[in-house]
């Protein structure tokens, strides 16, 4: 499968096969991480995060890749691992970058780092909250339908519930943000 085909599939409704193929690039990341005081599990987490970023990116309009998918994924992992090593307070040399690594990743990664924290905050909510928020933000169902699906009295109840869930998520997200030395709270 060529890069172009993979990108096409990633944009489609069913990116499963393309994602499977992309895991062929995991060993390279695994080697990089384990040579630099990480574990296999670290490498897998890192790589999966890179896949999620790519998956989100390809769906954006006007996204173009200036290098191969493999280089792109590796670059994300390398940058994130460098950041993680700094966070763990380890002295490290710069991890070597590929020559054609995209230069503009810093902004993207800072943003994705915050999104990752938001994801963690959301993950810590109850199932019902997650279900509601997923239906609202991801599948974009109307509130009345959501209310029926998860057993709430009506649109009003769903709205209030959504508010409470989001408010709680925001609180936890803020906490994570302040605890994390890399992603200092935003001051827009």
């Amino acid at each position, binding site marked *: 499968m060529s890069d172009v085909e993979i990108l096409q599939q990633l944009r489609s409704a069913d990116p499963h096969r393309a994602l499977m193929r992309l895991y062929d690039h995991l060993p390279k990341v695994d080697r990089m991480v384990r040579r630099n*005081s990480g*574990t296999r599990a*670290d490498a897998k987490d890192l790589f999966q995060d890179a896949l999620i970023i790519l998956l989100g990116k390809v769906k954006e309009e006007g996204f173009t890749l200036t290098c191969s998918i493999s280089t792109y994924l590796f670059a994300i992992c390398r940058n994130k691992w460098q950041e993680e090593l700094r966070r763990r307070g380890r002295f490290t040399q710069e991890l070597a970058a590929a020559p054609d690594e995209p230069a503009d990743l810093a902004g993207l990664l800072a943003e994705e780092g915050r999104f990752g*924290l938001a*994801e963690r905050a*959301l993950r*810590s909510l109850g199932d019902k909250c997650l279900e509601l928020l*997923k239906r609202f933000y991801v599948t974009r169902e109307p509130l009345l339908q959501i209310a029926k699906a998860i057993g709430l009295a009506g649109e009003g109840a769903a709205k209030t519930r959504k*508010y409470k869930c989001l*408010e709680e998520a925001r609180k936890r997200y803020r906490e994570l943000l302040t605890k994390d030395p890399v992603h200092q709270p935003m001051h827009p």
Partner: protein
Amino acid sequence: MRHELELMELVDRYLRNELNADERMAFTERLHHNTELRQLVEDQRALHAGMERLVLRNAVDKAYRSHRFGKWMPGIGGAVLIVLLATGSLLMTSPEHEQSNVAPAKVSADTSNVITNAVSRNVRTDTLQQTRDTIVRTEVRVVRRPIVVYETTSISEKEPDLGIVTLRDARSEELPSYPGGFSAMHAFLQRNIRYPDTVLSRTEAVTIEFLVDVDGSIQEVQVTKGIGKLFDREALRVVGLMPKWIPAKENGRPVKARIEVPIRFTAVSVEQEVPGSIPPTAQ
């Protein structure tokens, strides 16, 4: 609270591009002067994105499992298939053939090797290499105690107790099965296994064997390959918690069956246990 609720609704609509031109202009104007509102918009935007990521993560995880599956399947899958076929053909040999000499004639050296693997605990090794008669007896034992081997492998190196996935979905009507299938069993183990308060230096599996009776109840649970008291005990405990299985069937009739389930414990390195290291997938 009403006010905050309305404000959040407004931000949601702004982020989802649902405001009309006038509303939008008024909102951007407010945004310009109001730091708190800007912060709210930023946070809510991050939470929208976080929600998307949560869903994408499921897809990415699923692909990871398929990827692993594809890697192992050609090797182990083939072996498991042979074992299952061998067991299956033995299941069809009815007990009447016990003393007959027809069956052994068909048994090739290769097949008997496979059988040996499947029933090694029932037969002493030294007798296996011997005469045909021995092989006949071996078979008869198998007919009485069919053994189904579910091959499993670790899917996650991160969470020690998460790691079991099927390599061969034993959906055949003949085999005993966990209600809801293998994925349900996987989920059950995942939920209930508590990683003992000690650490393994490498990933190992406790093999548990038990009998699924005609009513689906689990009996004669025993460890056939242990890796240490704490792990063995935990594996036994969890298998003991399992609900009734769906019994094996022979010609549509429920029969007793003995099966083997390896429960894999993944090695954890000390580094992974350091609190504060990023676990992006941590619950």
